[in-house]
């Protein structure tokens, strides 16, 4: 690797100027927020790094409007502290990637949206992209562009906001984001059903999601990972966990109904609000596979009923450890040795489709194996044309998502 120079713009205009410089000198830049998710994507070889870490500060927050705006480099911590003070939260529960990469650093709000980083509540409250209302960014020509706004319903023009979410800095440098926030639930409980195998768990989670009890988290923790959560407090076989949140009287009623239903499937225990908060944070942050490697980790997104079938099929061919979030539709896979990319992706196709992202692997693997799911030719060509419309000279994070993105 070459030593890279890190540039710290202090305003949107600085960002625009630096990108324009990059275009003029034809030298691509790596875009960085807090740098805690740098292990994601294909390794880059950029001459310099453009960090938005000094574009900080909450620019607009009126709790009664359920909306906040902040500059992209604002530490997530600062955003969450301000929300906390008003009993509000980011409803999509962004995952913290530090544990899984074993890195330090300060995650930024811009990084959260650039990666469309969501957590367990995604099944009920949407992903980061569903909560992003407006963006200001600098495109690859050094122009300052805005899209969306600060209101919850907005269909004015093309929704470039969604496109920016999850584009990992390949379409523009996010400078400011405006997003939806929601009241923090008054209380929460977790219903844990014990002793189900992966297939039974998938059925139990589907049954829970089809009840009118508003499950806000549905995960299955097989025996192989259970002792690595909650300091081992759950250790007595697999646990299928279902979270309920809301007003106290409402949670009480729903919890009773869900427990009654789940008792028919296995032994049931109920975790209180504190335990619930701790457990779901660990599920969110992939605590069972923490520590930076070296074992490769996949994040697989499939239809919820296909998740356990994928794992069962893989187990016949490779050493794999797995657990499930999103009702079984989000599978975290830790491979014993080789990432087995072809196998993983071939089985996903056979099971009705979805995609696999190689979240953790050493740089040489990530240079060889497509980190993000390769797209069919038509969509890949379309993605390339889109990239060209934002970044015609290819100066922004070139190749981070694929050889064309």
């Amino acid at each position: 690797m070459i030593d890279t120079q890190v540039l710290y713009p202090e305003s949107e205009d600085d960002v625009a100027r630096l990108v324009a410089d990059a275009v003029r000198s034809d030298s691509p830049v790596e875009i960085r927020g807090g740098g805690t998710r740098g292990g994601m994507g294909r390794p880059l070889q950029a001459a310099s790094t453009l960090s938005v870490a000094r574009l900080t500060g909450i620019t607009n927050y009126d709790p009664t409007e359920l909306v906040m705006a902040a500059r992209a480099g604002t530490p997530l911590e600062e955003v969450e502290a301000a929300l906390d003070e008003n009993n509000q939260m980011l409803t999509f529960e962004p995952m913290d990637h530090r544990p899984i990469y074993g890195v330090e650093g300060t995650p930024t709000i811009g990084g959260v949206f650039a990666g469309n980083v969501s957590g367990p509540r995604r099944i009920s409250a949407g992903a980061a992209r569903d909560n992003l209302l407006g963006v200001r960014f600098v495109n690859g020509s050094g122009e300052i562009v805005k899209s969306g706004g600060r209101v919850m319903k907005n269909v004015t023009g093309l929704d470039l906001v969604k496109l920016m979410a999850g584009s990992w800095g390949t379409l523009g440098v996010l400078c400011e984001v405006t997003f939806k926030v929601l009241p923090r639930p008054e209380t929460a409980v977790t219903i844990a059903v014990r002793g189900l195998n992966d297939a039974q768990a998938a059925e139990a989670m589907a049954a829970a999601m089809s009840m009118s009890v508003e499950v806000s988290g549905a995960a299955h923790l097989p025996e192989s990972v259970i002792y690595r959560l909650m300091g081992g407090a759950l250790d007595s076989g697999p646990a299928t966990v279902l979270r309920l949140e809301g007003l106290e009287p409402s949670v009480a009623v729903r919890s009773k109904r869900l427990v009654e239903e789940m008792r028919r499937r296995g032994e049931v225990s109920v975790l209180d609000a504190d335990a619930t908060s701790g457990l779901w944070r660990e599920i969110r942050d992939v605590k069972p596979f923490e520590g930076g490697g070296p074992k490769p980790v996949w994040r697989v997104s499939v239809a919820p009923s296909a998740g356990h079938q994928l794992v069962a099929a893989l187990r016949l061919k490779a050493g794999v450890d797995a657990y499930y979030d999103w009702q079984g539709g989000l599978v975290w896979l830790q491979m014993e040795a080789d990432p087995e990319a072809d196998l993983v992706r071939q089985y996903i196709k056979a099971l009705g489709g979805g995609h696999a992202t190689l979240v953790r692997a050493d740089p040489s693997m990530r240079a060889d194996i497509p980190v993000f799911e390769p797209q069919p030719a038509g969509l890949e060509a379309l993605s390339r044309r889109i990239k060209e419309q934002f970044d015609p000279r290819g100066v922004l994070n070139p190749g981070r998502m694929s050889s064309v993105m």
Partner: protein
Amino acid sequence: MTELIAFLEPDRSVIDRRPVIISDLADMLPEGCLITEERELVPFDTDAFVSYRRMPLAVVLPETTEQVAAVLKYCNDNSIPVVPRGAGTSLSGGAIPQEDAIVIGVSKLNRILEVDYPNRAALVQAGVTNISISQAVDADGFFYAPDPSSQLACTIGGNIGMNSGGAHCLKYGVTTNNLMGVKMVMFDGSIVEIGGKALDSAGYDLLGLICGSEGQLGIVTEATVRLLAKPEGARPVLFGFQSSVAAGACVTDIIGAGIIPVAIEFMDKPAIEICEAFANAGYPMDVEALLIVEVEGSDAEMEAMLERIIEIARRHGVKTIKESQSATEAALIWKGRKSAFGATGRIADYICMDGTVPLGQLSHVLEKTSEIIDRYGLRVANVFHAGDGNMHPLILFDANDPEESLKAEMAGNDILKLCVDAGGCLTGEHGVGVEKRDLMRHQYSGIDLAQQMRVRAAFDPKWILNPSKVFPLDGRNGSHAAQPASGKTAA
């Protein structure tokens, strides 16, 4: 009649080729899928934005995705504009054709292909009506959440085109939050599939970009949509206030207190009168403003939530509180609200605005709206989704009076600018269409719009898809910057 909004100048060379085009289309479609007789084309000459009408060159109603692909490829190869159409319920003129355009309607693509409860998804064709999805899964305890007022007629294809909302999106989100995948025909007739039953898809968020793109990026023929478990019960409650300001402040305080009901709808006095006369819903007639607040869940849950809402409403001097006592009453309350546009149409012509404002600006914008309306000497009825700041002033006028029609459009434009200036946007759920196209520069800079247009061109290089819509006609990028029609007279 004078028209404020210009359409693109029809391409003479296309119109001159009409006989050949019709014969070519007939060759690629089964019988009964091509409409060319003037009398039969009339129903397609506008949508719910009835002030503007244009006759299309022809209408095709394909029965398969492959037929859509064949027609689209033909049109692209021959540079013929295409206007996609669902049920034609657009309030912004999104489906109004033009004289040189082929309308591709999805009404024959009307089957629900698969219902998958374990994965809470339904695979439907684009011409399926919004309500029919909920109806198909109702008995099994599920529903499809976005519920635009036109849900009896409007199609999923149209909903995706416009990213439609509805009364209950405060809790459940709009179409884009409930759409999981699409099959779409691209400009060149190629067919792509994006997303599916997984919760997210790989690569750039093309699904998010397509949703709300107003038929300019491709034609969706199938969609995978999210099904949700029906709540155990739902109860709309009426809250009558002595002033719109008090009602608006009550909305802000309910949300601010951390309570998110499934819907908060607002009506002012003229709207209450119009809707009550139509639906006999039992709305209080002695108040200046009405909120319909709907809570859902079990009885205990609904009561717990209502108790807190009522306490807040009392602080704002609520005059009447009326809970629905039965499913029939609840249905009537919603019938009144959802037929607001139709009921208004019985007493006057109207145009409906759709700006969204930050919640804190509701009272201010209501006040300014009535000042604008007074200035033009018109009348207005306000009925809107208050919980998310999506305003719907209905401007009443007489379409037979050209001067008043013009005033109504001008008042509408002033109101939308007011919404943008208050920190909001031109349209919350109806789309830009032709109606708000020329106001886009009030919300976006030239650079912002140019970026959007470049993305559009990545999907449709010749700008054949719904070309008169969304982007101002002047200042379009590149060689496709067709000129606006010079004659501003109606067809």
